[in-house]
């Protein structure tokens, strides 16, 4: 959570509390009533607070996860950039000194360092450990240590303490040392531009600043750098540039005044100043690398925070329902007292005030304690997530637990405000008590006549919702209206329907239609629910489905009641157990919704996890098309396609031009870096990756790929195009039919491409596909022929990958089967989904604890009735059994509704291709049974104590004591 968002929250909460406090001071009677109600039974007050604080803990925990991701990614500013704030890629090394001079001549007080580097992709190998180890993603860097040590006026942040390596020597980064298992004094061979250079390691540099320099274009979190003497690269290239290789670039680096992260704040101004100094004719591009990295960190933090908050929303809603349920129970327990208070002159608003004073105590305590517990929740998530993030190969991230005061205080404030609003709304409903009926404990009559204003209000809601739905139909960002619009139209028509066909029939019709819409609406709207990639759509869909299903169930219970009573006729405990939930439908409905919501999400994620985990074959085919191995090589020294094809077992090899370029769809302000893959017709002929979406007019994937090869103005993007943050569905930046600008990052040359398809799965980070001709035209030599799609004879893929990596060490070749890459990613995805399930288990905790709280209150509420039953001859065991059966019945209904809805919804989404084509639906029966069984048993355990208390009630005492 950002610090800027905190003051409004704090102000809002303080104002709310001040208003309540003012009432408490001004109305001593209301104060006494509210305070004594809250403090009369400390144990029950504790339960209410316990039930309310989990929502706050989840909110706070989500914010802390965001803080942690933000801090962890921001760490790259220290480890991979240090004082570097901007870089300018200079294609001609001779230009670099002139550019440095121009920038220095600016004497801009915001700039405190200018320097240059040469950084080229290479590969390295060493036998220092006894066996030969290679690092194909090595970066060879030429840097003048003497000049750069003081770069940015903070030497430790550069990591370059000491002297520039002499020819034949190298300082290597800790990451490269780890990868090669090499240290000081060891010999390392560096391969670039077709030549190899043996160097002796002089020092192992910490992965800090320039020593850990990485532009992040490979998306790798590692910095396997080898610093060599100036001139080494020029010597290597003296024999000429190997075919397909990218020429070396000089990088002019600029440091802004301020610390490692502070300097980025003036990046825009500095960039403008530099651009002016370079002159209007310059095509060089100033890359605000630090600012972009910090922005990406903020974006990632927000996305992960939002991801956990969205998933946690189910538990938060469950917590709200629990609070409503508790207050409804409290009001029913105090019904005659409320009636008396109204009779002696207390106004409705006074009752609300009294409840608000009581509720404020619960809300503040739950907010404060929830905030503290949220730290633990956040810490636990980070602990569990750390191995998942660190085990993500090239994309690994070391999580550094971090939290801000804004997150903890903000989480606590939001939790307290949610509680206060819940209490306010519930209190208003409670305050509408009829005095006589309350005092005499008479049943509330059903409305004999629908009020005119209800009818008009309903019709207005229908019209508004209908208009909103129609006007935003097809707009993927208007997912909320797509999901809730039609049900709101029907809800608004409910008063009219009640007049015409009766309340029960009308409610059943609305609930049933809403349920059907919740399940099939996404397909009907052509994917409008989820196409925007917003996870909150899933939350809304889940809430709609569960509310509709439980309403339907509650209304149908009259029909079911006869059957249930016949079944229960012979067993008094069973009859008693079922009588209460069937009679108190509103309260039972709240508990069921609370329970079903959590079970729905947990089952849904379990099903999806299994569905995705079982799609290895499909995903492998989607990613590889007609190929089974993906080969990446060093951009400075790639093998030729004929070299690759010559390896025994290779049936076909297709070269791919690869590099990192800039894209600017209309949806972004600044161009964003992303990989490009330039492919040839023979890749398409053998089999290109599967597409998940095609532009209008294309009837098959093959036609899209043929068009791509034939038309250089077209592009096929991947489904995560330009999404840097990770953490679940992010922003969709471009769709089929959209135009986007593609920009050479060095020359700024810009051209336009039209998106004609979206690849369904891109595990190798191939990025956007264009024809090789199109890529050459747009980016010239800035891309290298360093990727290859390879197909092998059946069952030869393992042997071929081993042979490729062994034979082309000097070329930095990494060969992986598509299956292996897919399996690795599926493993990470499954782990992450399990983390989500674990997080959702917090919601289950709310549900189970809620059921326990409800049953504890039920024991108190029914104390007298228990006394009567005991006096009539009910055994204490029967009383206990009745409570356990009641809890089990509610839990069973909640579990059944939640799990069935989840399975049906997942089946619908999967079978209609909402999660990609060719995905087969599977139900993980064992997992679902374990999950639901555990939830059921936990519910019984939660009820065991109140049931035991109920069975121990002494009848004479219960009958004698009124409360």
């Amino acid at each position, binding site marked *: 959570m950002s610090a800027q968002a905190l003051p409004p929250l704090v102000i809002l909460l303080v104002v709310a509390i001040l208003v309540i406090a003012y009432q408490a001071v001004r109305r001593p009677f209301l104060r006494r009533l509210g305070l004594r109600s809250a403090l009369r039974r400390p144990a029950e007050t504790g339960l209410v607070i316990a039930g309310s604080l989990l929502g706050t803990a989840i909110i706070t925990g989500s914010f802390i996860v965001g803080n942690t991701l933000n801090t962890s990614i921001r760490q790259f500013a220290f480890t991979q950039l240090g004082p570097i704030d901007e870089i300018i890629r200079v294609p001609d090394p001779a230009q670099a000194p002139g550019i440095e001079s121009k920038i220095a001549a600016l004497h801009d007080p915001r700039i405190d360092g200018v320097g240059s580097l040469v950084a080229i992709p290479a590969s390295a190998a060493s036998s220092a450990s006894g066996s030969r180890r290679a690092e194909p993603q090595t970066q060879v860097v030429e840097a003048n240590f003497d000049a750069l040590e003081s770069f940015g006026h903070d030497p430790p942040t550069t990591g370059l303490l000491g002297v520039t390596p002499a020819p034949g020597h190298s300082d290597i980064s800790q990451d490269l040392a780890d990868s090669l298992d090499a240290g000081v004094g060891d010999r390392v061979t560096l391969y670039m531009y077709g030549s190899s250079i043996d160097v002796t390691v002089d020092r192992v540099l910490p992965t800090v600043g320039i020593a850990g320099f990485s532009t992040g274009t490979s998306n790798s979190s590692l910095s396997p750098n080898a610093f060599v003497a100036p001139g080494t690269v020029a010597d290597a290239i003296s024999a000429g540039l190997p075919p397909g290789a990218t020429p070396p670039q000089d990088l002019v680096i600029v440091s802004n005044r301020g610390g490692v992260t502070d300097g980025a704040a003036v990046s825009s101004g500095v960039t403008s100043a530099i651009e002016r100094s370079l002159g209007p004719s310059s095509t060089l591009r100033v890359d605000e690398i630090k600012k972009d990295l910090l922005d990406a960190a903020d974006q990632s933090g927000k996305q992960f925070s939002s991801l956990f908050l969205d998933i946690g929303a189910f538990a938060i809603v469950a917590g709200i329902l629990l609070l409503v349920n508790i207050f409804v129970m409290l009001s029913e327990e105090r019904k005659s007292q409320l009636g008396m208070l109204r009779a002696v002159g207390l106004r409705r608003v006074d009752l609300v005030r009294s409840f608000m004073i009581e509720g404020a105590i619960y809300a503040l305590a739950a907010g404060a304690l929830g905030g503290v517990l949220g730290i633990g929740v956040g810490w636990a998530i980070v602990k569990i997530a750390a191995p998942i993030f660190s085990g993500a190969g090239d994309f690994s991230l070391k999580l550094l637990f971090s939290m801000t005061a804004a997150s903890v205080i903000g989480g606590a404030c939001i939790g307290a405000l949610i509680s206060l609003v819940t209490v306010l709304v519930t209190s208003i409903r409670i305050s509408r008590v009829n005095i006589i009926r309350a005092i005499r*404990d*008479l*049943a509330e009559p059903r409305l004999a006549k629908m009020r005119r204003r209800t009818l008009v209000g309903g019709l207005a809601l229908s019209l508004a919702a209908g208009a909103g739905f129609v006007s935003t139909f097809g707009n993927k960002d208007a997912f909320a209206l797509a999901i809730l619009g039609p049900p709101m139209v029907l809800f608004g028509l409910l008063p009219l329907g009640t007049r015409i066909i009766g309340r029960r029939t009308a409610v059943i019709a609305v609930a049933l239609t809403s349920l059907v819409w919740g399940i099939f609406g996404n397909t009907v709207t052509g994917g409008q629910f989820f196409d925007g990639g917003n996870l909150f759509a899933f939350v809304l869909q889940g809430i709609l489905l569960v509310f509709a299903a439980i309403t339907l169930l509650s209304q149908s219970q009259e029909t079911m009641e006869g059957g249930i009573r016949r079944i229960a*006729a*012979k067993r*008094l405990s069973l009859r*008693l157990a079922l*009588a*209460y939930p*069937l*009679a*108190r439908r509103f309260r039972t409905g709240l508990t069921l919704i609370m329970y079903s919501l959590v079970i729905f999400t947990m089952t849904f994620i379990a099903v999806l996890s299994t569905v995705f985990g079982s799609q290895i074959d499909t995903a492998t085919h989607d990613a590889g098309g007609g190929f089974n191995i993906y080969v990446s090589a060093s951009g400075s020294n790639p093998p030729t396609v004929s070299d690759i094809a010559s390896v025994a077992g290779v049936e076909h090899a297709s070269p791919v031009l690869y590099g990192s370029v800039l894209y600017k769809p209309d949806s972004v302000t600044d161009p964003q870096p992303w990989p490009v893959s330039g492919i040839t017709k023979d890749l398409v002929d053998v089999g290109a990756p599967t597409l998940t979406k095609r532009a209008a007019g294309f009837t098959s994937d093959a036609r899209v790929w043929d068009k791509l090869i034939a038309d250089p103005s077209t592009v096929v993007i991947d489904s995560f195009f330009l999404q840097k943050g990770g953490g679940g569905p992010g922003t969709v930046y471009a769709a089929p039919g959209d135009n986007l600008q593609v920009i050479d990052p060095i020359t700024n040359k810009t051209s336009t491409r039209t998106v004609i398809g979206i690849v369904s799965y891109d595990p190798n980070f191939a990025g956007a596909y264009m024809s090789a001709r199109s890529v050459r035209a747009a980016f010239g030599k800035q891309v290298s022929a360093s990727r290859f799609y390879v197909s092998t004879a059946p069952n030869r893929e393992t042997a071929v990958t081993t042979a490729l990596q062994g034979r082309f060490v000097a070329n930095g070749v990494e060969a992986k089967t598509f299956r292996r890459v897919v399996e690795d990613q599926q493993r990470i995805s499954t782990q992450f989904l399990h983390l989500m399930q674990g997080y959702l288990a917090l919601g289950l905790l709310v549900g189970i604890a809620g059921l326990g709280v409800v049953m504890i209150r039920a024991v108190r509420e029914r104390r*007298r*009735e228990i*006394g*009567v*039953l*005991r*006096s*009539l*001859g*009910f*055994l*204490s*065991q029967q009383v206990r059994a009745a409570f356990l059966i009641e809890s089990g019945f509610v839990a069973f209904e909640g579990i059944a509704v939640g799990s069935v809805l989840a399975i049906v919804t997942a089946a619908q989404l999967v079978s209609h291709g909402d999660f990609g084509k060719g995905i087969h639906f599977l139900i993980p029966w064992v997992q679902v049974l374990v999950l639901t069984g555990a939830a059921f048993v936990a519910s019984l355990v939660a009820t065991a104590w109140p049931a035991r208390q109920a069975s121990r009630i*002494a*009848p*004479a005492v219960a*009958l*004698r004591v009124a409360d």
Partner: protein
Amino acid sequence: MYRTGAGQVAALNDLDLSIAPGEFLAVMGPSGSGKTTLLNCLSGLDDIDSGSVVIAGEDLHQMSDATRTRRRAAQMGFIFQAFNLIPVFSAVENVELPLLLAGKSPAEARKRAEATLETVGLGARKNHRPNELSGGEQQRVTIARALSGDPLIVWADEPTGNLDSETAMQIMDLLVALNRDGLTLVLVTHDQTIGEMAGRVIKMRDGRIESTATTA
């Protein structure tokens, strides 16, 4: 003995009381004299520290809680001042509870419950829940519940305390009629008029029987 924060209070003391089958005994006395406690101890709802309560030759307080509970179901009926019906059950469901507890089949229990409700004049209101009935009707349901299992004895604690005088008299007429048909009835009341309808009245003070009087 009742244990309170301040110490122990002797709720009942030095009591010796016999009730004959078919007798109508009224227990009267000021508030706090021990009337309800006596009723609770006699019916086995409350424990006693010493002494015995013998019903049909068996000491109630020598039995386990489960046995005593079953004995209540089989031999006793209860009528309370606050009616104490189970709110989620309809009138007939409330009335058939003791029958089901006594092991009758659901069909038989329902039949007898309906017949008993007819006896107390509530046959037409059998499917109504308690909060849909008036106070007098609720008390009639309570009486029907107390009678439905053909108990040896019915304990009534201020059965007319929550009713207006006219309804109270109707209820008492009903109870007296039932007593005349052989029902043993022990009734706690403040009301002298109602007390005088009993065959015998004991007056209590400070947990002791102060006087006994035969009225009929």
